[in-house]
């Protein structure tokens, strides 16, 4: 347990700092609310419609891809801790793992999953020639 004391102290510090900051501004800050001030900020214009808009399925896809690469990262932790014992064999094993997954990365990239704006869509070679 003792090895975790530092982490506990850090968590206490982080939470305490954030709490103190919010608490102080609540206590000391001047407050004269008007309806305009309380309205959600939307580019300085009066808000239009509901904030609860249906999100595009793209968000879900990105979350899914993030989850998959996150699982991959989770494997890095024991590997990094044990790297000195594993030597080059361990290195090669991890590189193989990452090479296989990088095929997936290239695939989702080329499929345009990582593109956001409509203009940034991947242009296919044929289109590029035409342009």
């Amino acid at each position: 347990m003792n090895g975790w004391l530092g982490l506990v102290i850090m968590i206490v510090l982080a939470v305490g700092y954030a709490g103190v900051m919010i608490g102080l501004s609540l206590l000391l800050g001047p407050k004269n609310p008007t309806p305009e001030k309380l309205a959600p900020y939307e580019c300085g214009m009066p808000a239009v419609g509901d904030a609860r808009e249906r999100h595009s399925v793209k968000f879900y896809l990105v979350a899914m891809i993030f989850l998959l690469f996150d699982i991959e990262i989770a494997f890095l932790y024991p590997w990094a801790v044990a790297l000195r014992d594993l030597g080059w064999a361990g290195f090669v094993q991890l590189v193989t793992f990452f090479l296989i997954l990088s095929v997936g990365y290239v695939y989702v990239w080329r499929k345009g999953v990582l593109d956001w704006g409509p203009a940034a869509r991947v242009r296919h070679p044929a289109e590029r020639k035409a342009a």
Partner: protein
Amino acid sequence: MMDTPFNAVVPMLCVVFAALAVMMAEAFRGRDEQMALGGLGIVGLVGAAVSSMLLWNRNASSFGVIVADNFGLFVTMTLVIVGVLTIMFSSVVVRRDGLPAGEYYALVLFAVVGMIMMATANDLLVIFIALEILSLAVYVLTGIRRDDPRATEAAFKYFLLGAFSSAFFLYGIAFTYGVSGSTRLDRIGAFLAAQSMSDSPLILVAIGMLLVGFAFKISAVPFHMWTPDAYEGAPAVVTGFMSTGVKAAAFAAFTRVFLSAFEPFSVDWAPMIWILAVATMILGTVVGVAQTNVKRMLAYSSIAHGGYLLVGLIAANDVGKAAILFYLLAYAVTNVAAFGVIALLGTRDAANDELRDFSGLWHGRPALAALMTVCLLSLGGLPPTAGFIGKWYIFSAAVSAGYYGLAIIGVLTSVVSVFFYLRVVVMMYMEERDPGLAAPAHVGGVGMVALVASIVVIFYLGVLPTRVLDLAAESISTIF
């Protein structure tokens, strides 16, 4: 072939590389560019077949968890045949239905990778990962026609229930590890044989949970609930693929786990599987009779076939183990071909898989009708087809092991099942074609080649089974 530590994974690697190549090709494909992605897959599968032949009789093993013994290689060959036939039928369907070609073939190939891994794995954890690889791929393939609500529903049901059964399977592995301290099948077997653990409930819990996981994948009653819906909703080619490939891989692992690691406890699990087998054979047959959709009927028929395979597992003598292998091969080729015919009959907008869609098929498409007839006769177990030899072999194994009851139930249900197979045949030949029905689609060259090839195999296995039977017998002599 040189002896390296990686020999045993070569067949799997061939398919992995083919799948990765398909993914890369799809990623860099121009928008309207056509690519022979299926051909790429076939190249990989042929590589797997060739390397399996080279590994025959060598008992290679890699990483201690993948063993290319003859048993695994025999199943690998079966899976390769299933994969090649599936890709050939798919090449027609993918273009017709406008499915995403790259993803489709990549998923089929990854599923084959999972199946081969499952058939050659000697470690419960690897079996689990293989199971997940093939399951995930097949869930997605089931719902790959996103515009079809039936397919989406089927994929969703299959996924939810499949995830549930995977949890059971994993829990069983955890219990097994807790008791024996290993996930390797040989070590578990040695540990259990050395220890008299008959008073420990934990290992029985573990066996029960693994049994549930396997029973789900081979759709044994009462864990078959997902099967009719998933099989009916999926595209017909995919149904053919999953009703044979998944079943073959799951049975290979099932056989390996229960006849090597849990062999010392066969007194405990044999009665459980006995009940499963009887329920599976009876329900699959009886409910199959009432179906009016051919895909759904074949779904129940494949449930019943799972029951016959379980009979071989219970008999567990040399004949029984070899019979499982032969039956898997015969059933796989026949069923893929039968679903291939259904797939080729469909069009983009109409599946054409109702019983009445087959009426008078003989007059419109005599070749397809004849090929379908052969498949149905083989599924029904009539000579001179592969199905007859398979059933004969399974039931004689049951009799020689003293399971007369099982053999009798098996023969009786086979007789009943002939009724619903013949009903389709009668529809095709005796009925006039309903003029209101749409004309069946034209069949491309590749699909026809695949069909004829599978018919040749069905007759070869039915008329000259000795060579393959010997190979199957040779396969089981190396393990267990």
